[in-house]
């Protein structure tokens, strides 16, 4: 009988999160610190705009690349935050979440055997998307001692003559690490020297707690070799609306739009109208949420200090990534016991790559009250482990 499945799909490892999810969902009164999405509702004026679009009967396809008005607002946003100007007609595409942009971006760029450099720990979909695009993922294991930033030495060591594109996922999920301008300048120099591309996933750009987020695209000569990916999920708490975008050189966006056209047609129309409102009038909401996240971040860092738990200070996204190596367990063992004994779910660092071993991802997309209870339990757990 003919085998029904594709070998490359079969070869993909299922997400390490799934197993954990199954345990947690069966457990009553467990506290989760495991989500990768904001706890805020989408601000009302944005939802209202979506409702309004439905009421007015705006229920048709938009153009493949997305509503012109939205593309213009995206360009305005990139221009005012990064001082980089994109042409809304040719250099932007609106996608179904940032995830789609990652997928079609890699598919548009990679030939069979091209190498895609992926720093880890990082978001779970880069590696599978690279494989499905026919490329070969080359993993860089980021180090805690560098605060999980990508160093020029690490990048240089990973580049070969087959390297096509570097994925640059900062602010980072799961570590919360950021790359500042000085760090990026060193990376950009190597990118240009080696004539390769960057896919910069900046979905957490607005959640930066140390100065303003700097995109690598704002550095000289980088616009022509960067695909900038962003979206509405994290900044505006719009995960369920499924809306992201990519900005980049016209020739790449054109091919991405082709894949998008055949696979997706266009991003959801209602979401696109809501997103126009988000970009036009959402700055205050972003500021309010960023402030709340930052308070929680400080609260967690302080809680770790008080329980002497080793953790570098992350300045981005809504994750902290404490080190649990002192307990002599794997991340998975630690997370499983923490869940079983204290009923708190946090994701093992290994779900985001082997270099996440010895770490735990704790999300602070939760109310302070929730975090307080979780930290009391973590403290009790850690003290019990130390006593042996």
């Amino acid at each position, binding site marked *: 009988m003919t085998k029904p499945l594709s070998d490359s799909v079969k070869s993909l490892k299922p*997400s390490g*999160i799934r197993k*954990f*999810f199954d345990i*947690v*969902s069966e457990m009553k009164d*467990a506290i*989760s610190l*495991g*989500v*990768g*999405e904001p*706890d805020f509702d989408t601000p009302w004026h944005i939802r209202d705009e979506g409702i309004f679009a439905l009421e007015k009967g705006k229920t048709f396809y938009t153009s493949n690349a997305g509503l012109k008005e939205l593309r213009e607002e995206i360009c305005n946003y990139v221009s005012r935050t990064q001082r980089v100007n994109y042409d809304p007609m040719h250099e932007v595409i609106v996608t179904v979440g940032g995830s789609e942009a990652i997928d079609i971006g890699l598919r548009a760029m990679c030939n069979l055997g091209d190498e895609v450099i992926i720093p880890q720990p990082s*978001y*779970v*979909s880069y590696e599978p998307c690279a494989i499905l695009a026919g490329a070969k993922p080359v993993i860089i294991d980021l180090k805690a001692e560098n605060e999980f930033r990508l160093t020029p030495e690490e990048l240089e060591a990973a580049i070969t003559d087959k390297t096509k594109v570097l994925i640059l996922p900062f602010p980072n*999920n799961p570590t919360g690490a950021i790359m500042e301008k000085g760090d990026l300048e060193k990376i950009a120099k190597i990118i240009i020297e080696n004539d390769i591309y960057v896919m910069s996933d900046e979905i957490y750009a607005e959640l930066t707690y140390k100065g303003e987020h700097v995109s690598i695209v704002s550095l000289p000569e980088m616009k022509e070799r960067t695909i900038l990916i962003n979206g509405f999920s994290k900044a505006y708490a719009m995960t369920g609306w499924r809306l992201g975008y990519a900005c980049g050189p016209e020739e790449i966006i054109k091919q991405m739009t082709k894949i998008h056209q055949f696979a997706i047609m266009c991003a959801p129309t209602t979401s696109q109208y809501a997103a126009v409102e988000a970009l036009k009038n959402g700055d205050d909401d972003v500021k309010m949420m960023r*402030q709340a996240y930052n*308070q929680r971040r*400080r*609260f967690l860092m*302080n809680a770790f200090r008080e329980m002497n738990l080793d953790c570098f200070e992350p300045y981005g996204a809504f994750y902290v990534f404490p080190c649990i190596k002192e307990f002599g367990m794997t991340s998975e063992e630690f997370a499983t016991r923490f869940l079983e004994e204290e009923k708190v*779910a946090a*994701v093992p660092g290994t*779900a*985001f790559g082997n270099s996440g071993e010895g770490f735990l991802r704790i999300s602070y997309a939760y109310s*302070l009250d929730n975090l307080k209870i979780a930290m009391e339990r973590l403290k009790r757990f850690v003290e019990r482990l130390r006593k042996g």
Partner: protein
Amino acid sequence: MSDELLSIIEKNSRIGVNELAVLLGKEEIEVANEIAKLESEGVICGYHTLINWDKTSIEKVTALIEVKVTPQRGQGFDKIAERIYNYPEVRAVYLISGGYDLLVTLEEKTLKEIAGFVSDKLSTLDSVLSTATHFVLKKYKDHGTVFDKKKEDEREVITP
């Protein structure tokens, strides 16, 4: 710091100085000094509790009263506003633009007491030209807080 500090304690006035210091990334002494300063400047005017009286056995009736007045020479609306807000049963007095001048919020035990206040005290003031009393039937939201709504976390428990 004061903007962020105020936005925290506006929602939770019971929070301790030590916790505030952690959330704001400041020293406790800095936070304590800032609060003292805001109190003395009259920026912080009190630390109240938001109570949903409907859930208690205590009867309370709230009315919003639109008041048209004649402003007084040299004192504008301030003098008449003061005469009204000095009554303890008056919860709030706002000077309003538009069709009338003052909006008075009144809280009493019964409807009758409100009626009494309007007819005996408010309407008889010299500068008051007219009043229109609206009774509150239900409070859905007050001070930015929605009453009677517990929000469930509907997110998937673990997501990448």
